[in-house]
């Protein structure tokens, strides 16, 4: 009975190992940077992590549903170029709201395009979304050939604000967690896990496999738009390849968050934790005064070690049992 409970707990709370990993990296970071827990520092850190956090939650939904979305990064770039073109320092609140709504719609459309190609044309998710990623980066280049643009000052200040003396990032994390809890409680979530785990069995049971598969990409499109808004507010300007690097980071965050790439398992909150782990590792490398030219290499090695941790733990456990 207890073993079943425990088994169930670990299968549901797949991010337990990620949480342990998070505590470890935060502790290491603290040893290098003693003011880590000051409000200002937390606010700064969360602010840089926020766009990727939002993006990773969308990626998590796709991965749980048995796919992967390699177009999210360039979609963020495209949204960024559109926003800085539509919003000028003189824009009114109404115009800004309209621009935000429009880019969300575009994100949903882009996601629907991916979903349609994967679910109805039966193309491989990796190939499809890699191909569509060039559509989005192409549009971004057309919209904004040269970096530039600027936003109203209020908007940028809002992104740096700390309502009720708490960093804005914490609110965003709260909203993301709440979103996941609500989503997890719906029938839709049952479908999502079912198609990710075994789409044939799900089909035989009457799950509308194709429509659910399309919606997973729609979610990631919408979250890419939201991440694009966050990134634009964070930088205050536009650049046609600004989000391109975020694609693979979102996948890595998903894996660090304990979500299996084969689909059908995991928890989107894990992806948020994964993003924080990635950010903290970057911090550590900066404060450990790793020479500039070695930083990329060291960063890569540390991430690899973090990714390998669960596998290594399993390996050790099996060796002990023998």
């Amino acid at each position, binding site marked *: 009975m207890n073993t*079943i409970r425990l088994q*169930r707990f670990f299968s549901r709370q797949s991010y337990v190992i990620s949480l342990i990993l998070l505590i470890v990296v935060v502790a290491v970071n603290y040893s290098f940077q003693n003011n880590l827990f000051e409000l200002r520092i937390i606010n700064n850190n969360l602010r840089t992590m926020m766009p990727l956090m939002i993006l990773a939650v969308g990626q998590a939904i796709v991965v749980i549903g048995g796919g992967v979305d390699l177009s999210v990064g360039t979609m963020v770039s495209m949204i960024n170029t559109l926003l800085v073109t539509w919003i000028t320092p003189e824009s009114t609140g109404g115009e800004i709201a309209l621009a935000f709504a429009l880019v969300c719609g575009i994100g949903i459309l882009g996601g629907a395009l991916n979903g349609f190609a994967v679910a109805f044309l039966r193309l491989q998710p990796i190939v499809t979304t890699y191909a569509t990623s060039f559509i989005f980066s192409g549009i971004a280049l057309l919209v904004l050939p040269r970096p530039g643009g600027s936003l109203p000052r209020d908007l940028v200040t809002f992104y740096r604000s700390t309502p009720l003396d708490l960093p804005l990032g914490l609110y965003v994390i709260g909203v993301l967690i709440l979103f996941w809890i609500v989503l997890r409680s*719906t029938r839709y979530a049952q479908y999502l*896990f079912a198609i990710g*785990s075994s789409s044939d*069995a799900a089909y*035989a*049971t*009457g*799950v509308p496999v194709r429509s659910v598969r399309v919606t997973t990409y729609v979610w990631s499109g919408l979250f890419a738009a939201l991440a694009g808004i966050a990134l634009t507010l964070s930088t205050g300007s536009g650049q046609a390849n600004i989000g391109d690097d975020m694609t693979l980071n979102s996948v890595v965050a998903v894996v660090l968050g304990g979500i299996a790439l084969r689909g059908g398992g995991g928890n989107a909150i894990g992806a948020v934790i994964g993003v924080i782990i990635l950010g903290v590792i970057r911090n550590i490398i900066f404060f450990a005064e790793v020479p500039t030219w070695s930083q990329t290499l060291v960063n890569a090695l540390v991430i690899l070690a973090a990714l390998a941790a669960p596998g290594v733990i399993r390996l050790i456990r099996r060796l002990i049992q023998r």
Partner: protein
Amino acid sequence: MGSSPPNRLPDSWAACKTMALTLSARSLVKRYGGVIALRDGSLEIQSGEVVALVGANGSGKSTLSKIITGAVVPNGGHLLLDGTPIQFPNPQAARKRGIAVVYQELSLIPDMTVAENIWLSHEPLRFGIAVNRGAMRDRTQALLDLFAGTISPKLQPDTPVTALPPDERQVVEIVKAISSDPRLIILDEATASLDTNQVNRLFELVKTWKEAGKAVIIITHRMEEIFRVADKATVLRSGESVGTVTIANTDEKTIVGMMIEGAVTPEQIRIPTTALESHVRLDVKRLNGGRLRNVSFTLHDGELLGLGGLQGQGQVDLLLALFGLIPHSGEVILNGKSVHFRHPADAMKQQVAYVPGDRGTEGLLFIRSIFENMQLPSWRKYGIVHRRHAARKDALASAADLQMVYASLDDPVSSLSGGNAQKVVIGKWLLRQPKLLLLGDPTKGVDVGAKGEFYALLRQLTEAGTAILFYSSDDSELLGLCSRVLVFHEGGIRTELSGENLTRANLVAASMGTAHEHD
């Protein structure tokens, strides 16, 4: 849909009568390309009836049941539900009309819990949106209680399906089918992996379903079960419904007779029985593994020994075990030496070859060339620096032996017809000159002409002294080719037929698990 069935508790549906149902299938036809799987499928059933669907391999019983469940769309004929014509485009549509099926090939999602699986796509909801996990758990418990005493305490609503043994997964599968309170339940080989207590409980439940006004279609490979629960049996033969009998007024012999009546026995090209005096190539004692239960037999050089019975009774597992593809226990004596193969490479070293029935997944690299495919198992023979010319010469000779029709050895295998592709699979093993050849339903999906050539090849091989273990799902083939056939039933050898006992009636009777009848 305010008071839709899933929101009722299971005890309540047992008490109250289900809405009445009549279903009739009339002259249903299903073609797959040029192959006719179902020529004239007919079946009548109504509430309170248990109808058994009976037939030999390839008789079309699974196609007929798949049309009724919406898994297959027919090419012709009519399906009438409650008197009105209907066609189900998918399984969901059939389920909405109250038709549920218990699959043998499991339809469970491994990563989800028992409760989540049972209620998938009809979860009890709160506020019309949130899944009511409490209710889901309670109702699952109530359904599982139907099998109380026959399942382990580990089987709980919250247990992940991956943690369950096959019999309990099957129980979950049954419970899942009845969770939607269907009017018609189809049990497709649902008892195959259940133990005796669970089967007894299931049949008690079938009786209560009958009383509650449900209709049940049962497909089983156990004749005995048909006589235990069914009211009627509809018999299919080569894609046609040949009649329906009332169980109370019939016996096993009549049903077997209907299953085989009028079927043509193919031209006899039996391999001479003198082989039995030759050297013993293979001696198997009490082999277990996969579905196999205590399988013992001997195979002589130059003998073509048939493996018969309904599909999935352990024949393929025997071939896989002998080729080292599945773990097994027991004694295997090959050419006088005791062997235990753990890997196909071990078996290949001892000149054993295996030709699988499923060319696509096990036999061939489709996009690679004929040449590459043929020399794949023998590459060692041609040295580390590949002696391509020698290899090519052998491949050409082998292709000529097999009378293969192809443009060039460098063409991809995907350019060949089914029969010729199968020859590549065999050809690649013949290059190794095997002493023991394991054939797993090799003529499945092969056209008639290619079959004839294939039979001639088998004859050549046996004449050359190759020992062949030949599993076929086509009874005619076994009757026509083999002088000795082992009939498998539930993982064991039910009986061995040879000489004048090797008749279609005995083969079919044994494959349904009934007593061996001497004529």
